[in-house]
């Protein structure tokens, strides 16, 4: 479904990604783990068109999307939930969700998807008239995810959905991610919480200072001594 080959991405003259390759197959949950500053967010931003790669190929359903505008990529079916819950603070929950469907014209289906998002996140339904800036951190994360789902993506890019959440809520969020995946959305998940991420993922990539250093099935990485030492706190 998504094939990334040898991409280089720069911030000015700083090279943030060096020859990164990865692929995501339909129906999978693929996770990307790595330390702070490894380049995980940079990779997601490049996939969703917020950054342009200087070199390399990005193919989505065998069509090149490298360097395309974000709106083209959203229309093609890739939605990005950026790091740090960027909700539209002075708008209500409902208005945020409406903006998620901004590029869609099928008004009737949008209504149906509203219901679906509210089913997935009942807390958002209770608070649909509330200004989203006044939601709790966890609720804002739910809203950011729900808003991305309103675009009806086939591939969802999630950047650290568990950041700053209490363990119980992290569990809830991960259950919801699995549920979204069961409903037919492929997921590329960036996580600091490698333990949780590996427990729901099919496959994983480990990224360090801008390069992929290992990849494999989630079980394989969970079993690997090196990975346990570096990312799972030696558990």
């Amino acid at each position: 479904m998504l094939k990334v080959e040898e991409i280089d991405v720069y911030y000015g003259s700083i090279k943030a990604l060096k020859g990164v390759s990865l692929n995501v197959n339909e129906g999978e949950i693929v996770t990307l783990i790595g330390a702070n500053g490894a380049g995980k967010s940079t990779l997601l931003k490049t996939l969703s068109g917020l950054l342009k790669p200087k070199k390399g190929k990005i193919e989505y359903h065998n069509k090149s999307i490298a360097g395309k505008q974000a709106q083209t990529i959203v229309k093609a079916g890739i939605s990005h939930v950026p790091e740090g819950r960027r909700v539209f603070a002075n708008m209500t929950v409902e208005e945020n969700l409406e903006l998620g469907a901004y590029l869609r014209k099928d008004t009737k289906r949008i209504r149906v998807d509203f219901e679906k998002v509210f089913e997935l996140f009942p807390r958002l339904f209770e608070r649909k008239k509330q200004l989203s800036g006044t939601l709790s951190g966890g609720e804002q994360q739910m809203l950011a995810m729900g808003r991305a789902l309103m675009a009806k993506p086939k591939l969802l890019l999630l950047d650290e959905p568990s950041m700053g959440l209490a363990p119980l809520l992290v569990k809830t969020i991960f259950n919801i991610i699995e549920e979204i995946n069961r409903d037919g959305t492929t997921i590329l998940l960036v996580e600091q919480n490698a333990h949780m991420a590996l427990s729901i993922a099919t496959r994983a990539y480990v990224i360090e200072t801008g390069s992929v250093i290992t990849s494999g099935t989630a079980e394989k990485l969970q079993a690997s001594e090196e990975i346990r030492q570096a990312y799972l706190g030696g558990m």
Partner: protein
Amino acid sequence: MLKKVNTFWFSIVLAFVFYGIIQLLISTAMLNPFYTNTLIFICINIILAVSLHLVIGITGQFSIGHAGFLALGAYISAIMTMKLGMPFSVALIAGGIVAALAGLVVGVPSLRLRGDYLAIATLGFAEIIRIIFLNIDYVGGAAGMQVTHATTWTTSFLCLILTIVVIANFTNSRHGRACISIRENEIAADAMGINTTYYKVAAFVIGSFFAGIAGGLYAHNFYIIQPVNFGFLKSFDILIFVVLGGLGSLSGAVVSAILLTIVSTFLQGLPETRMIIYSLVLVMVMLYRPQGLMGTREITDYFGKWGRVKGGNQYGG
């Protein structure tokens, strides 16, 4: 939603009633020219405030050179009527169009980037425009340019209503939602697939257009225009309308433009005092009401129980 639309048109009708009363008073000579002139000046300032409100309050792009577009509109329209003998209405539109084009030229390069490049670009632009007119003998240089008096209460009122209707409708449309989402969070707006550059430029060009229209009215209300009328302090005056009214509130911009125009009209003889009082008012507002007079609310919000617009909630009901 229906309710909201009705309140909006109701306010417009009310405005026309007000217009009629004033027009009657003017034509029966019951309103002396000083007051008529103040009313015209209020209209011009509201147009300036509302056009800048679209850029700063709705789209969240900091522009601090609005007087540059005012100057362009003023000089272009004056050239049209005085040098080329065109009718006033054509001159007004030409002033608006040239200002809009200038907005495009300034906006495209600076708004393509994320960050406050627009502030610097507009500041520079306004100064450049002023200096250009200062050095062109064709328009009188520093001495200024004579302009016939053509602005009436009717023309300024019609321009004002046009500005408000266009900008309020833009704000309440799908495009307006896109602009507000940029103000709220540009990265998230980008990730939603909203063409942020396009909307930032569009809002800026519309704002520039109406500032140009205001320029035409301004030029034809004063008998003379001089580059010194369009310095940084003028841009600052307009900025204050928007900030004082509450960023994101159209009615706030209108109310503060009215209040401050009245205050400064009565302090006209004392320009230094005026700046001190202005600054004091600003400091007080920032201390006691940092969100501005209206916050992000609209006057119409106080009518209906669903009202909560903050610059355009099309699903308000």
